[in-house]
């Protein structure tokens, strides 16, 4: 009977501990990813998902994120948006209504993001996006934050650099995917080329999912432009067009404003991809890469078979921004986190970062990171130049 007297308080203590542990284990913050995990742009989505998982793992290993005395662990939940508005809306409904997600750490595609915003902005859910459309930003979308450079940050320095490298360039053809991303990028691209004295011979559209590119390649080759700008086309589509252009003997300057996955590009185009300029890629194994980027890049090569790029690494940076904002707000209430996110300073994979872009978007929701220009050389993305936006320079020097 003596033993029983001891066992009772011991059992009660053990039960309390177990309950406390169970309680602690439940303090998990689910972070959503909505990106194309299948189709021509799958390499973007799969890379973004992987980078988000690495960021969550890093935060969790470092003890999680603390707010209001509680510690939270990040958990990544991914959905395939197939680069379509329908799937984007479906993803948002599932994440917000079923999974109870308050933070979306990465999304790809203007059309799916527009569809998601209808729900995320209304419910006050923070949405990080790589969407290139300007229409997803502004004071009317205070819960939306862009996690990578977009045309308004990239195109001027990117096109300027190309023009400097090839001063004799006079004519260009633009080929864009016929969706929200392409439609919003096209006028900016046309205007920027014109401002550099380049005549636009044609600006054509194709539907995502197109399998046969010979007709458009024949047209482009017959126009014989100095430059072909593939706008927001994903690497697999660009690879198919470059392959056909190579057969037809065209050999000018190849420009991919949304150029990223060199492995996917060269797998389709082969040597025809050589020399292509990429606006959203980066050499995360080169001298200018940070240690974090080198480590992530090596891991991605092993796990996914291809390196990271500006789109895929952005989920890592979004999660780092989110951690800093939650700790700054000392709350996991998305409204309180949103209130501090625009002014928070955090360590991105590129180095010190924050949010800016108020002059362009009337709201500081653009992540400040360097603009990096790379070119395909021997099947790899080689960094040619990089420049920091003025706001980022000020932030670094602050």
């Amino acid at each position, binding site marked *: 009977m003596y033993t029983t007297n001891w066992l009772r308080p011991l059992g009660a203590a053990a039960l309390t501990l177990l309950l406390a542990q169970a309680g602690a284990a439940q303090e998990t913050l689910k972070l959503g990813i909505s990106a194309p995990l299948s189709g021509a742009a799958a390499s973007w989505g*799969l890379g973004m998902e992987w980078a988000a998982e690495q960021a969550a793992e890093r935060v969790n290993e470092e003890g999680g994120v603390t707010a209001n005395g509680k510690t939270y662990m990040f958990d990544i939940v991914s959905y395939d948006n197939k680069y379509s508005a329908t799937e984007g809306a479906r993803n948002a409904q599932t994440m917000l209504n079923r999974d109870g997600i308050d933070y979306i750490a990465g999304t790809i595609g203007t059309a799916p993001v527009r569809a998601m915003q209808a729900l995320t902005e209304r419910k006050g859910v923070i949405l990080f996006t790589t969407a290139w459309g300007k229409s997803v930003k502004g004071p009317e979308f205070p819960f939306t934050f862009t996690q990578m450079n977009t045309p308004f940050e990239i195109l001027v320095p990117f096109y300027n650099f190309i023009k400097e490298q090839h001063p004799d360039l006079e004519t260009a053809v633009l080929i864009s995917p016929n969706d929200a991303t392409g439609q919003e990028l096209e006028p900016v691209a046309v205007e920027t080329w014109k401002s550099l004295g380049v005549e636009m011979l044609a600006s054509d559209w194709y539907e995502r999912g197109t399998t046969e590119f010979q007709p458009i390649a024949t*047209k482009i080759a017959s126009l014989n432009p100095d430059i072909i700008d593939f706008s927001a086309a994903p690497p697999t589509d660009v690879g198919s067009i470059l392959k056909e252009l190579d057969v037809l*003997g065209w050999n000018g300057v190849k420009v991919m404003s949304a150029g990223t996955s060199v492995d996917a590009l060269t797998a389709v185009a082969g040597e025809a991809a050589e020399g292509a300029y990429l606006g959203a890629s980066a050499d995360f194994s080169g001298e200018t890469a940070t240690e974090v980027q080198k480590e992530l890049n090596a891991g991605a090569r092993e796990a996914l078979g291809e390196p990271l790029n500006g789109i895929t690494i952005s989920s890592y940076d979004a999660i780092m921004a989110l951690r800093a904002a939650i700790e700054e707000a000392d709350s996991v209430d998305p409204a309180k986190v949103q209130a501090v996110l625009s002014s928070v300073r955090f360590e991105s994979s590129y180095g010190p970062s924050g949010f800016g872009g108020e002059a362009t978007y009337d709201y500081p929701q653009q992540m400040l990171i360097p603009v990096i220009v790379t070119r395909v050389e021997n099947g790899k993305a080689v960094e040619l130049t990089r420049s920091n936006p003025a706001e980022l320079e000020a932030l670094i020097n602050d």
Partner: protein
Amino acid sequence: MELFVQLLANTLQIGAVYVLFALGLTLIFGVMKIVNFAHGAFFTAAALIVTSVVPFATVEFGVPLWAGYLLAAIVAIVVVLCLGALVYGIGFQHVLKDLNGSFILSIGLLLILNGAYLAIYGGAPRTVPQVLPGTVSIFGAALTAQRLALVIVAAVVTGGLYLLIERTRLGLALRAVAMDQEAAMLQGMPFNRVALYGFLIGAALAACAGVLMAPINAVTPVSGDEFLIKAFIIIIIGGLGSVTGAIIGGLFIALIESMGGYFFDPSTATLAMFILVIAFLLVRPQGILGNVE
């Protein structure tokens, strides 16, 4: 002149695969009177199998690329035939001549198969090295040797199918069943077996198209879906159930894609196809060579 030869060459390159794909779809409709939305899944299965067997055979066993590709083609067609027999046995034989039932069944099947491909292969595009590298010039038109081979093989397969339909007992049975199933059965033709053969021939044609496209385009678990939409346009224009109609329709759609893509842009060409289908459905719903029922 050179330009028109190039556009014609583009038409033949694009049309060759469309014809093969649409022939299978129209044959299945003609014999079984069903719509098979899972037809693209046979194409995808074959293309995906090629992307996994070719590297396996060439890297693991040191087989030459052409031999690895031939092996992959055989494996792909056999696997698709087995898959075809399985889905016919489980599902399609129970919905023969039932448009609504086959519609629901094939949509469900498509979702299941696409999900399975995604789980097995992942979503990233997969590629196969070109078996026949190099470019050839025909009357000033440039095309890859691989594409030329595709056109030749597609023409041979189409010719073979035409002979099978016109000159063999099986072809006679398929035609008889397509014309009047009850009359054919009264003549002693085993409808279920003929329907199975028709279904398997259709699946094999989709597999052939997938095998031929794998070294040319990047393959994803949804590659067949884009071709499926075009194939439906083709058989509506050519005439549901008509083999010759599928050939004419396939080349016609390829011509629109080639000319429209050149003189306007690919998006406009795609739009033109849909407008054409609407026009056909309004003015001549039976298509160019289809029968009014």
